[in-house]
C-alpha cells in the first residue's frame, strides 16, 4: 500500500488552514495576540465539553436543575466538566470582544477585509447569543431572572417589541417552552451556524493574504511549519492548562432552583448585558434598547466603507498621532460617562421637572443630548486642536462608544447592590 501520501493526510489538511509561507511580521505575538486563534480553540473546547454535558442534562423545568446537581455531585469530573464549559463560554465572549478591538485599532478592516469585518460582527452577535441561551439552561434563580429581565428589555423596542419578546420566549413568561427553545438554539442551531461562519471567516483571511502587517514594504517570508505552528501550539497549551486550573479552583455559579414567585434583590442580566441594563436605568427604554443600539450597529457596519485619504492599513492606531488621540479619548470618555451617570443618578429628575413634556423627549432625547453634546464638542476639539483627520475622528467615536459600554458594564455589575442603588 502506498501510505506515504495518505498517512498524514488529515494533518496536512489541517495545516492547509495556513499558507506554506508567512510574513515574519505577521506571526509576532503582538500583531494579533493570538486572539482569533484562541477564540477558535475555545469554540472547540466548548463544542466537546457541550456535547458531553448533553449526556447529563435534562431539558425540562422538572429535570434541568436536578440534572445539574446530579452532574456535579454524582458524576466523576462532572463539576469540572461544567466549570470548563462555563468558563470557556465566558472567556469566549471576552476574547471575541478583544479580537474585534484588535482588528479595529490595527486598521485591519478595510478594502479586501471589509467583508470579514461584517462576518466578524455577526459572529460576535452569535457568540453572545450562544452564551445567553446557555445561561438559562441550569434553571436556577440566577438564570431564570436574568433571562426574564433580558427578554423584557426586548419588549421596549417600539411596535414589534412585545411580539418579538413573546417569540423569543414562546409566550409572555419564561416557561418550559422557553427552556426547550433555548436548548435547541444553544446545542443545535447556533453551533452549526458558528461552524459555517468560522469557515467563511478563515477563508476570507486567507483570501486577503493573511493578517495585516505594520510595514508592508518589508517582506521576509518564513516557513509556516514550524515557525507559526509551534507558536500556535504553545499558546493553545497555555490556554488549555490555564482553563483547566481555573476550572478546578473556581466553580461555575449555581443558585437555588428557579422560583417564578420570588425575584432576588437585585436581579441582574448576564454581565455582558449589564451595560444595557445600566443604560436603561437612566434613559427612556425606547432610546436605550432601540435608538442607540441601532445607531451604533449602523455606525459599526459603515466604518470600513467610508473613504479615508490618510489610511495606513496594518498600522496600530493608524499613526503616532492616532495613538495619542485614542489615549486622550479613552480618558475623556471614562470621565464623561461617570459624570453623566452620577448626574443622572443624583441630580436629575427630568420626568418630575417636566411633567408636561412627553417622557420620550425628557428622559429620552434630552438625556441623549446630555451625553452627545459634550462628546461632539470633544470631537470638534480634536479636529481643531490636534489636527485630527477623518480616520482619527472615526476611531475616536468608536473609542467613546466602546469605553462608555465598558464603564457602564463595570458600574452596573460591580457598584450596584440592593434595589440597584449605587454603592448599596
Amino acid at each position: 500500500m502506498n501510505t506515504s501520501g495518505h498517512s498524514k493526510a488529515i494533518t496536512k489538511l489541517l495545516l492547509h488552514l495556513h499558507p506554506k509561507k508567512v510574513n515574519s511580521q505577521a506571526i509576532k505575538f503582538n500583531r494579533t495576540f493570538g486572539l482569533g486563534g484562541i477564540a477558535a480553540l475555545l469554540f472547540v473546547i466548548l463544542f466537546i465539553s457541550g456535547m458531553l454535558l448533553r449526556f447529563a442534562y435534562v431539558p425540562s423545568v422538572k429535570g434541568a436543575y436536578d440534572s445539574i446537581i446530579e452532574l456535579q455531585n454524582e458524576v466523576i469530573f462532572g463539576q469540572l466538566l461544567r466549570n470548563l464549559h462555563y468558563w470557556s463560554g465566558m472567556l469566549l465572549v471576552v476574547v471575541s470582544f478583544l479580537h474585534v478591538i484588535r482588528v479595529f485599532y490595527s486598521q485591519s478592516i478595510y478594502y479586501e477585509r471589509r467583508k470579514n469585518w461584517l462576518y466578524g460582527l455577526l459572529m460576535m452577535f452569535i457568540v453572545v447569543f450562544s452564551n445567553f441561551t446557555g445561561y438559562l439552561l441550569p434553571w436556577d434563580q440566577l438564570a431564570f431572572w436574568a433571562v426574564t429581565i433580558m427578554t423584557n428589555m426586548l419588549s421596549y423596542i417600539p411596535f414589534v417589541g412585545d411580539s418579538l419578546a413573546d417569540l423569543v420566549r414562546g409566550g409572555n413568561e419564561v416557561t418550559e417552552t422557553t427552556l426547550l427553545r433555548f436548548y435547541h438554539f444553544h446545542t443545535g442551531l447556533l453551533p452549526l451556524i458558528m461552524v459555517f461562519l468560522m469557515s467563511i471567516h478563515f477563508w476570507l483571511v486567507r483570501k486577503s493574504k493573511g493578517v495585516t502587517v505594520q510595514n508592508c514594504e518589508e517582506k521576509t517570508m518564513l516557513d509556516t511549519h514550524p515557525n507559526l505552528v509551534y507558536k500556535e501550539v504553545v499558546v493553545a497549551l497555555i490556554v488549555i492548562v490555564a482553563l483547566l486550573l481555573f476550572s478546578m479552583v473556581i466553580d461555575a455559579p449555581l443558585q437555588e432552583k428557579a422560583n417564578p414567585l420570588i425575584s432576588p434583590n437585585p436581579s441582574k442580566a448576564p454581565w455582558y448585558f449589564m451595560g444595557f441594563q445600566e443604560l436603561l436605568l437612566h434613559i427612556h427604554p425606547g432610546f436605550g434598547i432601540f435608538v442607540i443600539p441601532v445607531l451604533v450597529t449602523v455606525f459599526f457596519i459603515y466604518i470600513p466603507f467610508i473613504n479615508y485619504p490618510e489610511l495606513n492599513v496594518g498600522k496600530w492606531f493608524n499613526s503616532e498621532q492616532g495613538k495619542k488621540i485614542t489615549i486622550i479619548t479613552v480618558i475623556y470618555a471614562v470621565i464623561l460617562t461617570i459624570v453623566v451617570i452620577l448626574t443622572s443618578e443624583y441630580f436629575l429628575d427630568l420626568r418630575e421637572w417636566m411633567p408636561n413634556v412627553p417622557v420620550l423627549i425628557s428622559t429620552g432625547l434630552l438625556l441623549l443630548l446630555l451625553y452627545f453634546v459634550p462628546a461632539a464638542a470633544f470631537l470638534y476639539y480634536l479636529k481643531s486642536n490636534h489636527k485630527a483627520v477623518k480616520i482619527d475622528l472615526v476611531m475616536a467615536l468608536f473609542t467613546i462608544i466602546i469605553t462608555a459600554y465598558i464603564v457602564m458594564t463595570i458600574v452596573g455589575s460591580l457598584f450596584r447592590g440592593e434595589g440597584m442603588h449605587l454603592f448599596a
Partner: protein
Amino acid sequence: MKMTKLKSNRRTFLKRAIYAVLSLEVLYVFTNLLKKNNKDESGEGMFDAGNINFIEKDKVYPFGSAHFYLSRMEDGGMLAISTKCTHLGCTIQFNNNKDRFVCPCHASAFSKNGEVLSPPATRALDIYPISIKDNKVMVDVHNPIRRNKYEASQLTYI
C-alpha cells in the same frame, strides 16, 4: 461593452432578488415555526378568589400562585393586580408596613391601586378582569389588561 455590463447588472440584480426572496421565505417559515409552539395564553380560566363577604375593605390579598393580588379599596371597589413588574418583569411583593407594592429587582414601587410611586417603572401594574358570580369573586387570569394609569372605572363593585 455597454451591453454586457447592463446584462451582468441585470443578472446580479435577479440573483440578489432571488436570494432576498428565499431568505425572507426561510425567515417567515422559521418565525411561524416558533409562533406555532407558543402556548395559547388567552384560554378560558377563571380563578376563584373566594366569597366576596370574606374580602375586607381597605385590604390587599395575595394570590401568589395565580400571579395577582386582590386589592379592595375603602369604597368596596376591587382590583386584581398582576404581580409582574412593568419595568422588566420581576415579581412584586406587597409591603404591609409601607402599604405599597415594591419590586425587589430595581426598587420600583406601586400604590395599592397599582400606580407607579417610584421609577424605574413607567406604567401602572396590569390588572385582570373581575366578575362576580354567586357571591364569588372570579378573576380571569389569562387576559391581563395593560394600562398607563389608575382610573376609577377600572374598579369592580358588587
